[in-house]
């Protein structure tokens, strides 16, 4: 229950950042998708099934403000969570450099996914040049800042474990 409450607080904090604070303080090109970072963290630290459920939940939350039809973000996040949990076992994603690469790749995947769905739905879309600039900047920002955020989340987990808020099995 405590774990659930903590995760709820984390997700709520990220949601508020993205819907209220980000648009005021952070330019669009430099935004790191906090949900993506949280999702990667959950995929690394939770069982795959739980991570996938989290992916669906985070995706549904993200979908609330979108003008698109269909469950766009749940599907994108589902793919990311699946990939992250598989690669965590098979590749050395403990390394911050690999994490940077992985987060950059996921941001790229997210942007291309959204763009593809826009094209498929025959919706209007931003000029390609502008889209590519935003995508490239976001990818680089995610690769640079993402591992730091992941490290912060890991530190938070360890701290909570130390305080006895998390059970030992959670960390395992």
């Amino acid at each position, binding site marked *: 229950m405590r774990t659930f409450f903590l995760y709820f607080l984390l997700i709520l904090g990220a949601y508020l950042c993205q*819907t209220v*604070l980000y648009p005021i303080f952070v330019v*669009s090109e430099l935004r790191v*998708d906090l949900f993506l970072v949280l999702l990667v963290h959950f995929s690394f630290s939770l069982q795959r099934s739980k991570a996938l459920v989290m992916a669906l939940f985070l995706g549904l939350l993200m979908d*609330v403000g*979108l*003008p698109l039809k*269909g469950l766009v*973000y749940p599907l994108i996040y589902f793919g990311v969570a699946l990939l992250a949990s598989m690669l965590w076992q098979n590749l050395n994603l403990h390394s911050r450099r690999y994490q940077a690469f992985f987060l950059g790749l996921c941001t790229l995947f997210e942007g291309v996914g959204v763009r593809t769905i826009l094209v498929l739905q025959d919706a209007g879309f*931003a000029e390609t040049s502008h889209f590519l600039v935003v995508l490239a900047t976001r990818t680089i920002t995610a690769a640079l800042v993402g591992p730091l955020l992941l490290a912060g989340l890991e530190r938070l987990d360890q701290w909570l474990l130390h305080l006895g808020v998390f059970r030992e099995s959670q960390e395992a």
Partner: protein
Amino acid sequence: MPVTSQTRKLIIPILIILLALSLISANLHSRENMSFFESLVVGITSPIQKVVRGIIGGIGEVWRGYFYLVGTHQENEALKRELQKLKLQVNRYREADLANQRLRALLNFKKSIATPLLPAELVAFDPSGWFQTILIDKGSSDGVAQDMAVVSAEGLMGRVIGVSNHHAKVLLILDPNSAVDALIQRSRVRGVLVGLGRHRCLLKYVQRNEDVQVGDRVISSGMGGVFPKGLLLGTVQEVVRGSSGLFQRVEVEPAANFSKLEEVMVVIQPPPEEPRLKGARKRQK
């Protein structure tokens, strides 16, 4: 027959892809009303979002009220001069408006009724950052419906794309998914205003030989079937006529200030029905 590990590895991705495709197709119907989950999320988070926005606004007020007063006197003087000029202008416009009303009455035009406006507060922005949508604190219980125009004191902001009981989702004209049938006020040249996603819009499909100049005001034409006629959209910032091609590139700066969004107004009136659609319906009958 026992399911081998390889078969399982093949079956799981296939199932996931099928699930993904079915989820997409199941949700491809029009999202006029927000889903139960969306309404729930908005209902839970909007009070918190309002509080956070209030706190940030309060801090901003303190900053602007006490620490950011350098040069206020000069600015005040300049604004007073500007106000004098504007007063004169307003007087002229009032005269023109009266003349317009008299002429309309003479020509037996339908009397124009003041459009009812519903003030609403901004609750949140699009969380993904890829789109230009906002959430406002008025919904179907306040009379807000799909496709109603949303305006500010400066000009048109967007249209309602989703409604729940107490909230509505608004697609801003900055979003590349938005398209508004528009007119250049001076020369009556028509085009379609689409968002560029970065505080700029593009007036598309304006032919190369049409008369468009920097500084021209762009208004809604009322032909799209969604926005009332005559709403100010913005001013022309850049006109580029390339050496080839049918159309010129007309960049427009929106009149509404999207970086200082606080309060908006929803135009509470059914969108005008397009004559073409009426005709089509008659034919269908």
